């Protein structure tokens, strides 16, 4: 019974794919289940919101079909299987989404082999884009924020202590920060890598306190872990001991701020997006988000990247009038520029297919009774991924 | 001469509590020997030391003149020491045939064969069936051990031990918890066992002990009180006092 149903469905899918060539199918993979399953909706909502607002800008007769899949967290074999099915069965024109680096890495060969353009909307390890000529990234790299932060910190502080989660992105952030900080003449007192599943931060932070650095650089996965660190930081009195907490924007994500409470005040971060960003495009984005999903909801950097990624895909559809050719699409992606992103002007680096964007120096402050990442200055404009720039020189 | 089983000054204490004290014990080849004693005399501890389930505090154990004091349980079995358990210890959900066949296969060294199906090992199965037949269990071979009446389960215990072709067989209360009619049956089967096997029986049922055993050792408070043929034991005053007396009073 069930089998025949599936067969029928499959047959139907084949036929319908042939009949409506003007439907652009986007295979969208993100995480809904698993411990980080809370992140998926931030991306999906942004994509849906963009489609809803801009559908009428598509060439007449062209429709977008979003096929959503759950990769259940950092689960590369599952992600690969889903990508394969999306390509083989659903015949998607584009792949998009992906929160976790290993998932993106395992999907890369499929994008290459099937020649399906693949828009990465989060996964931030630098090397990803080198793994397939069909990958373009609209999100960020960890080097992009940690390296400028190191440059900034070197001007202000003499000694720094680094504390990062012990996994790929943590290592990236640590290396980038340390390199820039040292180049600027700073001194790294000590570097500690903490297991990902770490329930208690007091011991690590006590050690930091005893080492008395000018500043503590922290990178940990966005979310409640960051909250725990903030609370411990304040409880142990590191702030009073004159230690400044800094890090890439992941440690003070916009949606987590209310949970952190006042302990987060004064934390300085470098990042490419803040929901509190004072740009018209961003204000419109946030307003649209709240209108669609409720006043208590706030978009975050995943949302911004997904929004921009969808904008890029729309551009490719418009230019090709709904007929997606992989190589032409990639060419369009490579020359894509977007002045009105919620995060300011962005573009894709034609050489590396990676994002080029501004990095903002922010501080957590109270705005109208609520905590927000207030952008102090545009520390660096149009930053390319520093890691790739260095690789080129070598 | 070589004894089937022999202990020398065997002692066991748990902390301050001494449960076996200087036990010198000899089991002759082909003997029908009984070990009796009141509750808490240390019989089970003694048996457990013989089989290797627990290690003695001091003293030595010999199996056919070979010292086995520190030898593992499994190795003692391979040297010819078989046992039954006071509390029935069977593979309850397995068929009776399998209960015996596992032991037979183990003895033959076939238990690690991984390729030919067990049910194709006719030699193991035939031997097991034969064994079951001698104990009157031929008709029950296919039944699950747990579905058998208790008396028959006790016989399966014996069958498993016999499957090991032991030179020495320790029967730990083979008739415990069995209705008296079945005790008779068990006794009849025990009497038929090959004369080459030395049997040490630990039993509470005095009737059974005196009919079966040719020699009796009385254990009291971890010590050998007296040893001798049944008539002597029955006549011994000390035994009457500590043991038979107590039994009748109770």
């Amino acid at each position: 019974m069930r089998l025949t149903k599936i067969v029928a469905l499959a047959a139907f899918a084949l036929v319908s794919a042939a009949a409506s060539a003007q439907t652009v199918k986007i295979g969208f993979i993100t995480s809904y289940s698993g411990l980080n399953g809370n992140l998926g909706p931030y991306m999906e909502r942004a994509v849906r919101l963009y489609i809803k607002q801009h559908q009428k800008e598509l060439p007449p007769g062209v429709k977008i079909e979003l096929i959503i899949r759950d990769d259940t967290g950092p689960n590369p074999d599952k992600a690969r299987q889903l990508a394969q099915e999306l390509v083989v069965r659903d015949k998607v024109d584009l792949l998009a989404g992906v929160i976790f680096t290993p998932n993106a890495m395992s999907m890369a060969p499929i994008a290459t082999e099937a020649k399906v353009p693949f828009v990465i909307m989060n996964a931030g390890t630098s090397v990803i884009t080198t793994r397939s000529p069909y990958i373009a990234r609209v999100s960020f790299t960890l080097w992009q924020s940690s390296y400028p932060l190191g440059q900034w910190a070197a001007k202000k502080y003499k000694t720094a202590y680094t504390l990062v989660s012990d996994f790929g992105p943590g290592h990236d952030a640590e290396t980038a920060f340390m390199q820039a900080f040292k180049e600027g003449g700073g001194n790294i007192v000590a570097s500690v890598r903490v297991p990902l599943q770490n329930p208690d931060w007091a011991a690590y932070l006590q050690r930091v306190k005893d080492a008395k650095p000018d500043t503590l650089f922290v990178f940990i996965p966005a979310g409640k872990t960051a909250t725990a660190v903030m609370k411990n930081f304040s409880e142990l009195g590191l702030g009073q001991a004159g230690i400044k907490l800094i890090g890439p924007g992941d440690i003070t994500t916009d949606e987590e701020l209310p949970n952190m409470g006042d302990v987060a005040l004064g934390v300085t971060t470098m990042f490419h997006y803040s929901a509190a960003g004072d740009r018209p495009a961003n204000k419109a984005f946030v307003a649209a988000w709240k209108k669609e999903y409720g006043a208590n909801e706030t978009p975050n950097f995943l949302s911004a990247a997904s929004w921009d990624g969808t904008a890029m895909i729309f551009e490719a559809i418009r230019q090709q009038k709904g007929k997606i050719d992989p190589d032409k699409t990639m060419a369009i992606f490579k020359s894509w520029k977007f002045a009105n992103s919620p995060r300011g002007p962005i573009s894709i680096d034609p050489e590396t297919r990676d994002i080029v964007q501004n990095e903002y120096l922010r501080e957590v402050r109270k705005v109208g009774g609520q905590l927000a990442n207030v952008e102090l200055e545009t520390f660096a404009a149009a930053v390319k991924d520093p890691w790739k720039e260095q690789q080129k020189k070598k | 001469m070589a004894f089937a089983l022999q202990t020398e000054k065997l002692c066991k204490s748990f902390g301050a509590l001494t449960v076996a004290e200087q036990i010198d014990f000899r089991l002759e080849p082909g003997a029908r020997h009984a070990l009796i004693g009141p509750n808490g005399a240390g019989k089970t501890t003694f048996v457990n030391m013989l089989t290797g389930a627990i290690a003695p505090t001091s003293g030595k154990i010999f199996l056919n003149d070979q010292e086995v004091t520190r030898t593992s349980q499994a190795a003692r079995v391979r040297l010819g020491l078989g046992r039954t358990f006071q509390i029935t210890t069977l593979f309850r959900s397995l068929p009776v045939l399998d209960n015996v066949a596992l032991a037979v296969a183990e003895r033959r060294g076939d238990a690690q064969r991984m390729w030919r199906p067990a049910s194709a090992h006719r030699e193991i199965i035939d031997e097991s069936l034969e064994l079951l037949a001698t104990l009157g269990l031929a008709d029950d071979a296919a039944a699950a051990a747990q579905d058998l009446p208790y008396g028959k389960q006790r016989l399966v215990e014996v069958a498993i031990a016999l499957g090991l072709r032991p030179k020495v067989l320790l029967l730990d209360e083979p008739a415990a918890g069995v209705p008296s009619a079945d005790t008779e049956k068990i006794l009849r089967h025990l009497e038929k066992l090959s004369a080459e096997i030395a049997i040490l029986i630990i039993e509470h049922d005095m009737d059974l002990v005196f009919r079966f055993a040719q020699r009796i050792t009385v254990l009291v408070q971890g010590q050998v009180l007296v040893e001798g043929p049944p008539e002597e034991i029955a006549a011994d005053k000390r035994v009457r006092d500590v043991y038979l007396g107590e039994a009748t009073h109770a």
Partner: protein
Amino acid sequence: MSGYSADTRIRWTEWLPWVAAGAFFFLLPEYLSLGARILIFILFALSLDLILGYAGIITLGHSAFFGLGAYTAGIVSTQLAINEPFVQLAAAAAVAALLGVATGAVILRTRALTLLMLTLAITAILLEVANKATWLTGGADGLSGVKVDPILGFFRFDLYGRTAFLYCLIALFLGWWVVRRLIYSPFGAMLTGIRENTTRMHAIGAPVYWRLVLVYTISATMAGIAGALLTQTNQFVGLNVLGLEPSGDILVMLILGGVGRLYGAFIGPVVYLIAQDYLAKQYPEYWYFGIGTLLIAVVLFAPGGILGMVDKLRDKWLSLYKQKSSARASAR
């Protein structure tokens, strides 16, 4: 069941999984990558069933072997540049077996909760090692760049997953064949004996501990091969092959299907993975609820898993049928 009283002929129902797999290949060519995934997990579940279902070893760390196999196959390609699939498989099997002997020899003297904990700690340590040794394993980014040559120099791993599916199917068939022989052999009967009554096995002179180490190693080897298959079909290894989660998942799959019944290892992963695939697509956010409820229900009402339930129903039906026919006979 297995043992000396068993009928070891292959029943017609036992061919059903293979017929189904064949039908799957031809009828659902677009689902082959899911299919291959299922086949791999069946092999993994089968290896777990051997120790859990037959020998009674409770483990929450079977992913140690699966993961080690996966990484070994990958590293053989990335570090030694050996892309021959059979060499990768053999290397994975060997390394997993080695770990099986080494850890088995240490931990198999313990039982129950202690054993559970030790197995878990071992896979957790391996996970930590894989995470830290970035130069070797790629750390949290995963090990990419794994290359696998065409099988026998001819069958390329294609995008549709045809080769992968058939490759895994053959591997599973061989694995099934080995396990089936194993459990029906005297060795298998002996394992059942250990599970049923360890004291008794000691008393009949079986070196229980060494036997457990042996079967643990065999199982580890199989799990390692399953892991290697995952690497080869994905050309990628992620940290998710190690640790508590995959161990728990495979345990749940096996229990769902039915422990200690050869085909429980087949049914479980099929139901679990298809349900995951289906539910996760329909209600991605709440699929836990479904699988959790199912698990509680199985534990409470169907301890034998799905297959156990099928058996029960069949027995009931058979006895009803017998009653009826005997009633009819006596009526005459």
